[in-house]
């Protein structure tokens, strides 16, 4: 059930009298079902239905946020009153409390149908497994003091866990991670990914230590750009990219943008968490550093919000964050990429990454890789870490870029300042020269 936007906006008026002041009420209703399978049996099922709202004021001297785990007009009024008191305004008069409005909640999650489909899919393609599937339905409403209110919803699903795959040296346990908006085609996409993840592999050897050329294939280059462009270009972030606007940092063939309007990807949304419609933002335009990810708090007359205010939930204030990082296609086929690489590592999975913005150092962890010798695939390699520095790596990107762009469904959650939000990306195969690599456990 939505709040009465006109009434709530009226309550917020006194909080946003000055042009630099921002005030809003943000609500969220979240229904989440989680089912755990082990070798075809459903071992655990749980469902959660939560709701909450917060009132926020932001001015030159700081920000105030009040959260309550309810989602009705009485709670909104209480939260607005508390913020008004905090900043020294006279609060709204107390209204006698009414019987609590019954919230309708989002529609039924269609769990039965998904559970049957997934049970069959797991039994056929990965009969020995420990998978956890989560389907979440989130509806949010933003009522700003100035401007139109908005309501938006997302339905996301995740499958994570391990399964036993046959390899040439016997059975082995492999990790699996898949995140996508829940749609009719999602089950088929999951089937394809699961089949690919279960393909036989040779016995792995350590990946060696030192500098090597690396192809980031199957879309996993999205994780690299998420770390080295999305995070440093969040408004307010200080990094080696600060002050380099319009500088040529990478070959002219490299185009990267952040696009929240791609609703087929896990990080997409129709409205950001301040109610603004998101715009696709060019981060690297023909190799030149271009836009930044902004929200209303960091907007200026010259650079308005481009719809990247994001919150983990109503209990947190919004921060400017990335969504879906997209790398434009080049012209090279996979064979050409192999030839260009000649000798090095071919990596199709990255299962974690981090960046230290002050120094610009980052690291990406890969669970396995394939060594390439003289343009031919050779040994299977075990897990390792790629590390480097943002500006150096951008300069080391080879201009020959793959021509097929792949969504990278293993990239899903990004944490910053204790707030975890959904993200994703898509990228073609990308060759980076002289990456620093070392094996890990």
């Amino acid at each position, binding site marked *: 059930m939505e709040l009465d936007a006109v009434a709530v906006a009226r309550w917020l008026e006194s909080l946003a009298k000055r042009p630099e002041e921002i005030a809003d009420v943000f609500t969220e209703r979240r229904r989440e079902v989680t089912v755990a399978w082990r070798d075809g049996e459903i071992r655990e099922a749980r469902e959660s*239905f939560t709701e*909450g709202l917060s009132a926020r004021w932001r001015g030159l001297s700081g*920000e105030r946020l009040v959260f309550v785990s309810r989602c009705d007009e009485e709670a909104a009024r209480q939260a607005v009153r508390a913020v008004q008191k905090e900043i020294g305004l006279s609060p709204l008069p107390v209204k006698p409390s009414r019987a609590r409005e019954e919230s309708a909640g989002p529609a039924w999650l269609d769990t*039965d149908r998904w559970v049957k489909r997934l049970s069959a899919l797991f039994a056929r393609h990965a009969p020995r497994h420990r998978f956890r599937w989560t389907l979440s339905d989130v509806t949010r409403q933003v009522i700003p003091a100035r401007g139109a209110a908005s309501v938006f919803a997302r339905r996301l699903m995740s499958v994570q866990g391990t399964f036993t795959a046959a390899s040439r040296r016997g059975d082995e346990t492999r990790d699996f991670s898949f995140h996508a908006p829940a749609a009719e085609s999602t089950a088929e996409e999951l089937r394809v990914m699961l089949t690919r993840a279960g393909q036989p592999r040779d016995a792995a050897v350590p990946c060696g230590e030192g500098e090597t050329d690396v192809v980031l294939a199957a879309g996993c280059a999205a994780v690299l750009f998420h770390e080295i462009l999305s995070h440093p270009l969040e408004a307010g972030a200080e990094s080696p990219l600060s002050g380099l606007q319009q500088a040529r940092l990478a070959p002219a063939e490299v185009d990267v943008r952040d696009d929240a309007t791609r609703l087929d990807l896990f990080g997409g949304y129709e409205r950001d968490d301040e109610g603004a419609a998101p715009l696709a933002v060019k981060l690297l335009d023909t190799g030149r550093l271009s836009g930044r990810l902004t929200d209303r708090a960091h907007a200026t007359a010259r650079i308005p919000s481009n719809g990247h205010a994001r919150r983990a939930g109503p209990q947190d204030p919004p921060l400017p964050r990335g969504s879906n990082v997209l790398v434009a296609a080049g012209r090279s086929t996979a064979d050409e990429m192999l030839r260009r690489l000649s000798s090095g590592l071919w990596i199709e999975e990255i299962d974690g990454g981090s960046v230290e913005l002050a120094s610009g150092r980052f690291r990406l962890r890969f669970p396995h890789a394939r060594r390439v010798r003289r343009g031919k695939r050779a040994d299977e390699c075990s897990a390792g870490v790629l590390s480097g520095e943002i500006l150096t790596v951008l300069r080391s990107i080879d201009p020959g870029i793959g021509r097929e762009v792949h969504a990278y469904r293993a990239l899903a959650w990004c944490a910053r300042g204790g707030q975890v939000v959904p993200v994703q990306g898509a990228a073609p195969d990308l060759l980076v020269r002289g990456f620093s690599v070392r094996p890990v456990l």
Partner: protein
Amino acid sequence: MREATTASAIPPEAGFDRLCEELSRRAPGEWELYRKSGESLDLQATAAARVTIARREEGWAARWWERGAPLFASGSSPENLERALAEVSRIQTSKEPSPAWPTAKSPERKTHGAIEPPPDLFEELQRQVAAESRGEARLQRLTLRRGASAERIVNGRGLDVFLGGELLDGHAFAIGRKGSRACEASVVFRWDQGPDLESLARRLADRATLPLSDKPAPMDRGEWLLEPSVGAALLSGLTPLFCRDALPKWVHRAELFAPLVRIADDASADALYDGEGTQTRRVAVVEGGTLAARLHDLLSARRAGAPPTGHGVRTSYRVPPAPGPRRIFLEADAPVPPRELLSRVRRGLFASALTAAARLDFERDRYEAEFTGIAVIGGRAQGPVAGARARGRISQLLRRISGLSTDRQFFPMPYPAGAPTLLVERVDFD
């Protein structure tokens, strides 16, 4: 969380009776109902601005065995829990025997009145970080949170217990700079005895400035002296060993650690019951170097045919309880002052802070820890080490602990984990 002692009574349990009836109807005697209400005030300070966040949250959760199969539902109100409960019961999970439910009763807890805002310590910490780092590090952000909570757990066998507590914790972020080089330091902390700015400033300064030296480890093998926060992080990494059903093949219970090591878990100062209503007690997990006990919740105890140990942990009302540590710590019979441990280092490294999470592979008996610190020769500090990595077999690391000091401190992992300065012999570095 420290025990709450004062102020008003718990608010009326609207919906509690209705939910108990519904659960009794679905699973007579085989259910548990949990309710938590919490309040917190955050103050996030930077040089330019202050952000305050007030949160008031309520959470409800139920776990029950319907037709012999376990189910779990949660919600932010009794009505939401009822809805979730009705919907999840449509999923048929496989059957599993229910646990032996506890039956304790405790008097109703008193909760706090309005909680005090956390103090604004940004300027003071800023000064101390600058002093500790000789001006090389600057505090960027300090977030302090003060919170209080009240919990009630009821089950179908008559359990009805109340818990409550309060907390002061936070997160500090600093940046060290030297010429064109920069390094970030991020430290989470929890203050049980009030603010301890001195120790926090030292940790931030070390973490932000030692890596700026750019000096590698001057040795590839030697003694490893671990600052308490590093020891606590390693202890936290080892806790899956104390909770898992099957131990890895390399684990020999009798000689898992060096004989001087004792590890215990005792949260009785924090709460009288765990998240399932089992009474809290001290459990000696490692005694004289021997793995002596496991930490159990109700379900793991039932599966192992052992009594529960009071380690059913709820990390949130949204997830079912699971076995885990609640306040775990290292101790020794004859701890020595930290200086004495330092003097025992002939040639080694002092790990002042981890620069990445320690990795422990229990299946392959391997560990790897990246840290920044100081080279030590003949018991004397030789100079900073920007980054080093200790690696090897977990089994050897644990058996080569040769000293524990008297300076034990607790760190949020997020449960409190306590460690003193530790000395480990014959460690490989790179």
